[in-house]
């Protein structure tokens, strides 16, 4: 069975490998891609349930402040722009990697990292601000579900940043090869997925909050 690969046949790792190994690895790349899609679907369900919980709990503020009126739409808009542009720069990084221009790819990965980190910084200051106002997650069911939904997304972004940093170093050390190229593409899927989830959060948490 021969397959034509869209991945560059370069890098220090691939050079010594036999044909069988290469064939096996290309198959592994396809299978991992499929497996990763399934993982994303499974993860999307976690977010779906967190959204549903937010829908059920948003008004359960007990004696605490009204969560939705506390939210800062302007800040959330900046966060949205940061995350959306990071998705765009990651797309550029992937294209450069496909074209085997490793230096450009590294550059765009670094930009993506900075945008993602800035997003996370904004989110953390928002969280800190809420806690300082006496609106922490332990105040009411409503705030618990807000912090958990937005925080779970933030945790995913953090994981994505760690993964991004590791991939950056791998690309420096190992160079561009099938496995790494495919892995960075999967990271791209993850990153775009987080974008889609954020759009849901922006709509159902912040815009809905602004309507309140």
């Amino acid at each position, binding site marked *: 069975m021969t397959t034509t690969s869209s991945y560059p046949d370069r890098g220090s790792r691939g050079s010594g490998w036999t044909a069988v190994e290469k064939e096996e690895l290309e198959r592994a790349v396809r*299978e991992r891609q*499929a497996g990763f899609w*399934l993982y994303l*679907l499974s993860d999307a369900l976690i977010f779906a349930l967190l959204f549903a919980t937010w829908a059920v709990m948003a008004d359960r503020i007990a004696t605490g402040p009204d969560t939705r009126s506390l939210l800062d739409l302007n800040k959330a808009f900046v966060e949205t722009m940061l995350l959306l542009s990071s998705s765009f720069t990651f797309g550029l990084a992937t294209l450069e990697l496909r074209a085997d221009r490793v230096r450009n790819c590294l550059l765009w990965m670094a930009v993506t990292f900075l945008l993602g980190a800035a997003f996370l910084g904004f989110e953390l200051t928002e969280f800190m601000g809420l806690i300082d106002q006496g609106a922490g*997650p332990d*105040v009411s069911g409503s705030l*618990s579900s807000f912090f*958990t939904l937005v925080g779970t997304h933030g945790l995913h972004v953090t994981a994505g940043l760690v993964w991004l940093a590791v991939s950056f170093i791998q690309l420096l050390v190992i160079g561009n090869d099938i496995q790494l190229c495919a892995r960075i593409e999967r990271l791209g899927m993850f990153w775009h997925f987080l974008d889609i989830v954020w759009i849901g959060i922006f709509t159902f948490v912040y815009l809905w909050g602004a309507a309140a």
Partner: protein
Amino acid sequence: MTFLGRLGIDSLPFYSPVAFAGAATEVLAALMILALVTWKGWWKPLFRDWIATVDHKKIGIMYLFLAGVMLLRGFADAMLMRLQQAMALNSDGYLPPEHFNQIFSAHGTIMIFFMAMPFLTGLINIVVPLQIGARDVAFPFLNAVSFWLTGAGAALVLLSLVIGKFSTAGWTAYPPFSENSFTPGPGVDYWIWAVLVAGAGSTMTGINVLVTILMRRAPGMSLMRMPLFTWTALVTSILMVFAFPALTTSSAMLALDRTLGFHFFTNGDGGNMMNYANLFWIWGHPEVYILILPAFGIYSEVVATFSDKRLFGYTSLVFATAVIGVLSFTVWLHHFFTMGASANVNAVFGIATMIIAVPTGVKVFDWLFTMYRGSIRLTTPMYWTIGFMVTFVIGGATGVLLAIPPVDFLMHNSVFLVAHFHNMLIPGALFGFFAGFSYWFPKAFGYRLDETWGKRAFWAWITGFYIAFMPLYALGFMGMPRRMEHYDVAGWQPLLITAAIGAVFILAGIACQIVQLYVSWKNRESLCDTTGDPWDGRTLEWMTSSPPKPWNFDRIPTVHSLDEFAWRKETAGFVDEPGAPDVIALPKDSLLPMAIGASAFIFGFAMIWHIWWLAIMALLTILAMLTATGFTRDSGLRIIRIENRDAARAEVASS
């Protein structure tokens, strides 16, 4: 708090003599096993051949071993409960309430998560790659990680007997009782982290099996040529991938409530405990089918093989499986009809529940018609199958009864319900796993199991099942609630004593199974399976040697038909084209999966006892190990060259 969190000398089980005896037994058993391994010098082979393995067949065997150990523990819990309830009329029996509550919580948790799940995952692991003509699963490394995560969860539950206490909130851990305000100790946290760690393993298993079946089938094996067990494994893994997130979410929320003072399910401050019930059962009902569907697959394989016929209504069985998979997501509310939803909502879920009986009925008729006019061989797997068909129908009938909301209001939380779901899961899942175990044992180990002891085990189990659970149906009608530590209704006691006698029969069944294993091992020469096809099987797994080589098939077979092996045996003049010598790439063994599982265990333990620094260290260790794998320079594969056996044979003949 302190360096060791809330861990202290008072965490040891001195509160109940029975708990202490249990803990002592567990510690002694562990020490004896360690001593035996050291004395026999088994450490090296243990690490080399088992702990480091990524071979799906060996991982499957380790799953079966785990399931066996946990079956013993879970059954010991069941015996303790039956004995307590048989005694505790107007008295305290011999178990204090605090301990009794831990026992029923542990029994359910262990039997679902750490007996049934590993059992079916083990069988799927051993059989599915062989049935589809694959060399291994799609992600062998991940497969090993899944196993060690399951093991880590099981180890946490076992440890709770020795250090601290287990949950007293039942296997479902319903809030608000499972919240800090009512159950402050580590018990519920043991439940949460055991379930979260093992649940992560199950999700990954689901992804793995799904990709394996979709992408690694032998050439010619279209979806509608897949053996039925593979079909049920496919649907079960879809359910795993899509249902387990709900369990992860609900348990993680409960953990946030308990650890960080969130208010998801608390009584006050805006919490809503019914949200937990919803989330939990969005996982919980599909979970029932995660357990039962693979057993249905096993029954299908067994019935076809031992009736020496092609499965009757193969297509309808496939569709029934898929329909059950879809419907299983639409019925979760029947677990809490008494929540207070409107009559219309209850009616919708009640009707959806009853509809599931239709595809299930289709299956039962398909199996019966497969047997009709077949030349039936009454082997041990066939005994389990027929026992299942008769017994399961009773459970199905009581299920349809419970699906009627007004009836459920009466029977809710009574032992009628306990009888019902044991009536589904013991014949519906466990008997199937036993059937599969004796059916595929020769494939995994190279010799058959002793038939006499197998049949003895069957008769003891099924007799015990009826004696133990039929009284519970009656007791439910008499108004006995589940989970009673003691009671004052004299009329219940005779039936509870009967149920305890039933448990003794089941104990005899388990004893027969242990004897069966020993006798079969002793007679492994005469029970040896030299052909690889001890049952005159119909599917691909019987086409290779028993046990199969690490790469399963020297040459990947080409599939021409449903029941390919039977087709080859029946097709006169079929010649398999001898192929060129093959070069095979197999994944390299690794100790990392075990190390990841061990770190997950330490992480869970640290979270339970609030030892934050240790939890962070464990997480960082996992991260470091995963990162390190990305920097290796070799392909992670070992290359095996199969010599051309036909050429070799020809050479021998000519010389």
